[in-house]
C-alpha cells in the first residue's frame, strides 16, 4: 500500500504544519512516511508544496502521481492538477477560508478523515502542539466532518520515528558529546545549526554564529586546538570560503569536522533545491596534499551514525572529516523503525594548552612545533601525512560500514549510487531484478566496490549531477567505466516511480 499526498500553497500559509500533523499521527498509527519539501527562496508568497508519501512498508522517497492534492491556493491546483491520479481526490482550502490561521488544522482534519484515522488522534496531536487549542480543535473537527473515509487505514504495530537529515546531524553530534558548532547560515546547512542551537544550554553545548565561513572554520580550528569537540557546517559557497582552513587543517593536524550540505551550483544556483554536484569539491578542496575522510550518508539513521564516525575519526587521526549531504537529505522528513548503534566514545587524549606547551602551525614544523624550511623535515612531514591517511583507511575498513548492498543480492544488474539518491533507488528497485550498491565512504573508497562491479553484467550509475562524479571517482580508483548513467540535475530529487521507469528500460 502506498499513497502520495501533495499539499501546496503560498509560503507562510502553513503547509508544513499540515504535513507535520498528519505525519506525526500516521507514525503513531504505525505507518511509514516520507515528506519531500519543495520551497522557493522567499518568506511569504510564491508557491511551495510538500509531497507526503505514506506506506505500510519502509519508504524513503516520493512519487509523481498524487492520490490526494490539498490545495491551499488556486496556483497549487493549476500547477499540480496533471499529477492527480485518475480517481484522485482534490481538497481545496476554499471551504475553510473562515478558519483563518487554523486553515491548516482544518485541512489536516479532512486528510485524516479521508485516510480513516480516528478524530481522537488528531485532537491529541493538536493538544500537544498548541498551547491554546480550543479554536484549533473546532476547526479540526469541521475539516474532519466535511469528508468521508476513503482509505480506512488500520492501525499497524510499527514503532516509527520521524527525523530529517538536519536533525540527524544534531543527534549524531550530541551522541558524540559535541561541545561547539561554529557556523555561518547557509541553506540547506542551516537547519542542522538550528537543531543544535535549540536547547543548547540544556544539552551542554554551544552554537556560535561567526561573521563568515572563513571565520567559522578558523574559529573551529582554534577551538578544536584547545580540546573542544567541534563541528562546522555550510553549503557549497561557504565551503569554498572554508577551503583555506581545510588546507590549514592539513598542515596543523588540528581535528576538524565539516558538514557540507550541498545544493545546485555553480554560484548561488538554485538555493533551496538539491544536487549531488559537490562530491568533487568535498574530495579535493584545499591546496596541497593531505589526509581527509568524506562520508555521504543516505538517510537520517545513517547520518546519525556517520556523524559520530566523522567526529571520532577527526579526533583519533587528527584529520579532516567531511560529512557530505544535500538539501534532499537535510530537509526531507524520513521515517524509520531502525535504531542507531551506540557511537564509539569520543575521548580527547592529546596534550592541550593550559596543561602543557602545545604548538600547531600552518607552516611545516620541526619537533618543537616551530617553523622549518628544511628539505628533510618537509619530506618527513609529507610522508607522515600520507602514512596517516593509510592508517585512517585501514581503521575505517576494519571498523565501519563503507558501502551497503540492497535489493536482490545475487542479481547481475547493479545500480551504483550514493547519498540522498539512495532512498529513491531503494524504492525504485523493489519490483526489479537489481542490486543496489550504495557508496557511503567516498574517501577512502571501499576495496569491495571493485569486486561488486566485476560480478555484475549490467552496471547503471544513478546520480544527481551532470558529469557522474561518483562514476568518475570509481573509474579513477578501479579503472572500471560505468557505461549506463541516469543523471538528473534540475534541482529536483528523483521520484522513485520515475526512476523505476528509467531503470526498467535498462534492467
Amino acid at each position, binding site marked *: 500500500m502506498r499513497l502520495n499526498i501533495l499539499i501546496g500553497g503560498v509560503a507562510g500559509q502553513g503547509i508544513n504544519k499540515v504535513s507535520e500533523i498528519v505525519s506525526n499521527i500516521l507514525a503513531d498509527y504505525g505507518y511509514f512516511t516520507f515528506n519531500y519539501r519543495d520551497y522557493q527562496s522567499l518568506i511569504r508568497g510564491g508557491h511551495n508544496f510538500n509531497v507526503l508519501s505514506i506506506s505500510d512498508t519502509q519508504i524513503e522517497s516520493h512519487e509523481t502521481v498524487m492520490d490526494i492534492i490539498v490545495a491551499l491556493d488556486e496556483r497549487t491546483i493549476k500547477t499540480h492538477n496533471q499529477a492527480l491520479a485518475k480517481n484522485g481526490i482534490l481538497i481545496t482550502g476554499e471551504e475553510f477560508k473562515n478558519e483563518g490561521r487554523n486553515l491548516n488544522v482544518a485541512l489536516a482534519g479532512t486528510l485524516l478523515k479521508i485516510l480513516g484515522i480516528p478524530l481522537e488522534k488528531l485532537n491529541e496531536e493538536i493538544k500537544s502542539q498548541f498551547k491554546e487549542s480550543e479554536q484549533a480543535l473546532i476547526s479540526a473537527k469541521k475539516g474532519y466532518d466535511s469528508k468521508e473515509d476513503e482509505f480506512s487505514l488500520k492501525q499497524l504495530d510499527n514503532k516509527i520515528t520521524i527525523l530529517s537529515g538536519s536533525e540527524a546531524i544534531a543527534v549524531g553530534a550530541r551522541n558524540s*558529546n559535541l*561541545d*561547539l558548532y*561554529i557556523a555561518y547560515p547557509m541553506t540547506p546547512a542551516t537547519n542542522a545549526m538550528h537543531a543544535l542551537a535549540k536547547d*543548547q*544550554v540544556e544539552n*551542554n*553545548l*554551544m552554537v*556560535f554564529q*561567526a*561573521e*563568515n565561513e*572563513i*571565520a*567559522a572554520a*578558523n*574559529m*573551529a*580550528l*582554534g*577551538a*578544536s*586546538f*584547545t*580540546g*573542544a*569537540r*567541534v563541528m562546522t557546517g555550510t553549503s557549497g559557497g561557504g565551503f569554498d570560503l572554508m577551503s*583555506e*582552513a581545510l588546507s*590549514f587543517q592539513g598542515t*596543523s593536524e*588540528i581535528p576538524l569536522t565539516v558538514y557540507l550540505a550541498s545544493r545546485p551550483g555553480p554560484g548561488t544556483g538554485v538555493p533551496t533545491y538539491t544536487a549531488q554536484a559537490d562530491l568533487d569539491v568535498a574530495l579535493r578542496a584545499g591546496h596541497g596534499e593531505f589526509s581527509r575522510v568524506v562520508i555521504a550518508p543516505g538517510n537520517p539513521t545513517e547520518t546519525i551514525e556517520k556523524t559520530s564516525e566523522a567526529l571520532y575519526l577527526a579526533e583519533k587521526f587528527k584529520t579532516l572529516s567531511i560529512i557530505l549531504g544535500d538539501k534532499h537529505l537535510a530537509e526531507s522528513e524520513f521515517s524509520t523503525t531502525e535504531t542507531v548503534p551506540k557511537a564509539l566514545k569520543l575521548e*580527547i587524549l592529546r596534550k*592541550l*594548552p*593550559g*596543561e*602543557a*606547551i*602545545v*604548538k*600547531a*602551525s*600552518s*607552516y611545516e614544523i*620541526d619537533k*618543537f612545533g*616551530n*617553523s622549518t624550511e628544511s628539505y628533510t623535515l618537509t619530506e618527513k612531514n609529507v610522508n607522515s601525512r600520507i602514512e596517516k591517511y593509510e592508517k585512517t583507511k585501514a581503521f575505517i575498513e576494519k571498523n565501519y560500514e563503507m558501502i551497503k548492498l540492497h535489493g536482490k543480492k545475487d542479481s547481475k544488474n547493479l545500480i551504483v549510487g550514493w547519498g540522498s539518491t539512495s532512498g529513491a533507488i531503494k524504492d525504485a528497485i523493489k519490483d526489479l531484478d537489481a542490486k543496489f550498491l550504495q557508496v557511503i565512504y567516498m574517501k577512502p573508497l571501499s576495496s569491495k566496490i571493485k569486486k561488486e562491479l566485476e560480478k555484475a553484467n549490467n552496471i547503471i550509475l544513478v546520480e544527481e549531477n551532470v558529469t557522474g562524479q561518483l562514476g568518475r571517482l570509481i573509474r579513477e580508483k578501479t579503472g572500471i567505466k560505468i557505461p549506463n548513467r541516469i543523471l538528473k540535475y534540475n534541482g529536483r530529487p528523483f521520484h522513485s516511480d520515475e526512476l523505476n521507469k528509467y531503470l526498467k528500460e535498462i534492467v
Partner: protein
Amino acid sequence: MNMKDKLKTESEITWCPGCPNHLILESVKQTIANLVDAKKFKQEDFAITTDIGCHAKIFDYLNLSGIYCLHGRAIPTAIGMKIGNPNLKVITFAGDGAVYSEGISHFIHAFKYNADMTLILHDNQSFSLTTGQPTPTSQQGYQSKASPLGTFDKPMNPIKLALAANATFIARTNARDIKHMVEIFTKAIAHKGFSFIEVIQDCLIFNLEANGKDARMYKVKDNTDKKIAEKLASEFDYNSKEGRIPIGVIYQTNEPTLEEKWPQLKKLLDKKSTWKNK
C-alpha cells in the same frame, strides 16, 4: 632558569638585524615573565596566535602554546581558542597588512564579541615579508614594486575604526620603547575584554619614508573618555609628515566579555574548567 629564559626557543631568529621586532619580542617576554613571576599566571596558561608576515616569526621565538595561523586569520583562530577554553590567556600578534586587508572583517567583529584577549598589532605601514607592497595604512604616494605609480588612496585610521566598532580597550605604543611596551602590554592583558594595541614600528628595508616617527610621539594619560579618545584618534592620520602622535591607553571602558555573555562559557570560567570535563 629564570622565566625569561624559559620563554626562549631553539629557533634561529631571522628578523633583519636592527628590526624593531627584536624589541617587541623582548618586551613580550618581559611582560609574560613578570606575570608568571608574580604568580598571576602559569606559562601554560598562555596561548598565542600569530598571523603571516614578519611580525609572525615571534611564534617560533616564544616557548608558549599557540597556533601559527593563516594570513588574516589570527583573530578568528584566537577567538575560537577562547570559545574552546575561556580560561586561556590569549594573545594575538598580527600585522597591518594581514589584519587591515585580508582580515578586516574579523577585526571589526572582534570588538563586537569582546572576547577577553589581547591583539598586538605591529604596524610598519608596509607588507614587508612580501617585499614592501602598500598596506591599508601606507601613506599616500608610497611607491613600491607593486605600486610604481604611488599609492593613490589615503590610509585607513584603525584607531578610529576600532572606536566606531565599540572597542573596549585601545592603546598605542612605540616599538623602540621597551619600558612603554611592557607597561601597555601589561595593562592590555589585565583588561577584561578585547584589548587592541597598535605598535608603531619602522621597517628598515621597505617604506623608509614612513619611518622615524619617534620624535612626534607623546605619552597620554590613561583615558576613559570617548570624546577625548576620538580626538586622540584623529591626531595621527598615518599620512602627514608632521603633527603629534599620542601613545598610551587611548580608550578603555567596561563591557561584558564574550565569556561572560555566553552562559556555557561563564560556567567553564567560574569552575575554571574546560569542555573536556563538562
